[in-house]
């Protein structure tokens, strides 16, 4: 038996695993076109495109989508600024408690979302902060920072410290060095981290449940919609959009970071 060719059994098992993960997704897509609106009936009695038009004309969908996009964009922005600064501090300088800070930053992604959610909710209550757009953003930023931080810290570690000294030696002040040397070297890592953060924020349910007031982000709206037996395929249409919106940036992040392994570690 040669070691570089998988046996038939292994191939089948792998295929079964992949199908198990992705067939249900396909089901969601199929139901977006069904003519039956009260329940999910298999096989679908007929196919129609009308739900796309219905979805398009529902203002609550647009509101939820817009809220989700705004929350994701702003959380990602906050995460990119704070995550990069934190990564720079942890990887560039030595100070007391450096490892602790590194751990504390990563912790929110290891914690179950429900814990983060409850914790934030009690904290907001205690501080008498009314639930709003900004409380959702804060909740999302806690885990978005981790993604950006992890990407940036890995890139910083692979970037030679003497690059910064070389830039200053050649006459560049701190700002010029950041603009011309640091930023180009971490840009792809930041972009990848930002895209992942955006995708995470866009489909987040648990933390949002605890930190949102009356507003519904898109995933929350879908959850509410599923228990109401009215125009069910609308949810599926939205689900398709969510899958595409989250999938594209993740794919983009994958391609962006793939080819750059050799870029930043070069000076070592």
């Amino acid at each position: 038996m040669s070691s570089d060719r998988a046996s038939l059994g292994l191939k089948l098992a792998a295929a079964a695993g992949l199908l198990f993960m992705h067939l249900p997704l396909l089901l969601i897509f199929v139901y977006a076109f069904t003519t039956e609106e009260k329940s999910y009936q298999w096989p679908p009695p007929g196919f129609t495109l009308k739900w796309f038009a219905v979805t398009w004309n529902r203002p609550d969908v647009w509101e939820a989508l817009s809220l989700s996009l705004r929350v994701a964009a702003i959380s990602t922005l906050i995460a990119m600024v704070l995550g990069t600064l934190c990564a720079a501090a942890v990887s560039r300088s030595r100070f007391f408690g450096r490892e602790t800070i590194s751990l504390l930053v990563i912790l929110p992604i290891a914690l179950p979302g429900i814990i983060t959610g409850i914790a934030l909710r009690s904290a907001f209550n205690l501080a008498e902060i009314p639930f709003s757009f900004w409380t959702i953003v804060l909740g999302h930023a806690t885990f978005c920072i981790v993604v950006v931080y992890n990407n940036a810290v890995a890139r910083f570690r692979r970037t030679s410290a003497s690059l910064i000294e070389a830039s200053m030696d050649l006459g560049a002040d701190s700002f010029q060095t950041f603009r011309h040397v640091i930023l180009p070297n971490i840009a792809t890592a930041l972009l990848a981290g930002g895209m992942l953060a955006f995708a995470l924020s866009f489909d987040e349910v648990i933390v949002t449940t605890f930190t949102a007031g009356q507003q519904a982000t898109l995933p929350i709206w879908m959850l509410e919609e599923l228990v109401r037996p009215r125009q069910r395929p609308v949810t599926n249409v939205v689900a398709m959009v969510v899958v595409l919106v989250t999938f594209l940036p993740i794919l983009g992040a994958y391609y962006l970071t793939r080819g750059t392994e050799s870029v930043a570690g070069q000076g070592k």
Partner: protein
Amino acid sequence: MTSAVRFSGVSRHYGAVRAVDAVDIDIAEGEFFAMLGPSGSGKTTCLRLIAGFEQPTAGRIEIFGQPAQGLPPYRRQVNTVFQDYALFPHLNVIDNVAYGLMIAGRGKAERHREAEAALEMVALPGYGGRKPSQLSGGQRQRVALARALVMRPKVLLLDEPLGALDLKLREAMQEELKALQRRLGITFVFVTHDQGEALSMADRVAVFNQGQIVQVGAPQDVYYRPQVPFVADFVGSSNVLPPALTERLTGTRRFASLRPEAVRLAADGLPAVLRSASFHGANTRAVFETEDAQIVALLPKGVEIPPEGSAVHLAWDAADLHLMTGAS
């Protein structure tokens, strides 16, 4: 003549560690100055103090008569060739070389023209379009050199620039660097732990040990007339005779140095026992044991080597025994 770089009582301490301890240096304009020492001896810290990456804990640093304390690296007319070259990986060769000119606000055409001229100077014309990752170690080294030289620095700092190159390339680069320095007339300050490199290239050598300069002088001075046992041992592996032995030989109670190639076998002289002998091509390295010291001799081709363990007598010209001034 103006001093290019002058240290007066400069110290750099990290907590209890005295990386540089009360160092005085006076480097003349146009000089090729080597700072030689083992790792951790403070030579690289001194270089970083000149570049501005470190600030002194005490003392004064002047660059061409101007006080340099507190000046950041980007306000000094000093450029550095880094040990790991530190080429910007995201820029191609021409933009690497032109980086300093770009920061200085020079137009694209002008800076590319000057960068190309600098690349020609280091024998890399036409390499501008490549990425640093596509270059060999020796080529990267030249790009790093061009990037520093294009700034027309008053002082060029070189931090073990040849350390990462293989032996043949290193020897070629030594000669090129020396020629380049003569041609440009720029003050070169060169840090190395390789005594051969320091001796062959520099006008003057400062030998560092434990954060202090133990001897400064022309290569011949440092090599033939070491002032302290450390220099005798580190620069060219001289024999160091303890004060007791020197006293018996010369009547003066001091450390003395004796070059291995000055020692010969004789019918009469210092009694010794041959411990070991190893063949090194042009000569044989023989280790002798005397009453109070071990003496290494490089015996030229043609000398009959007695069997190991034989009792022999060692002799040398009186002028080759050099009395040191320092105690340690």
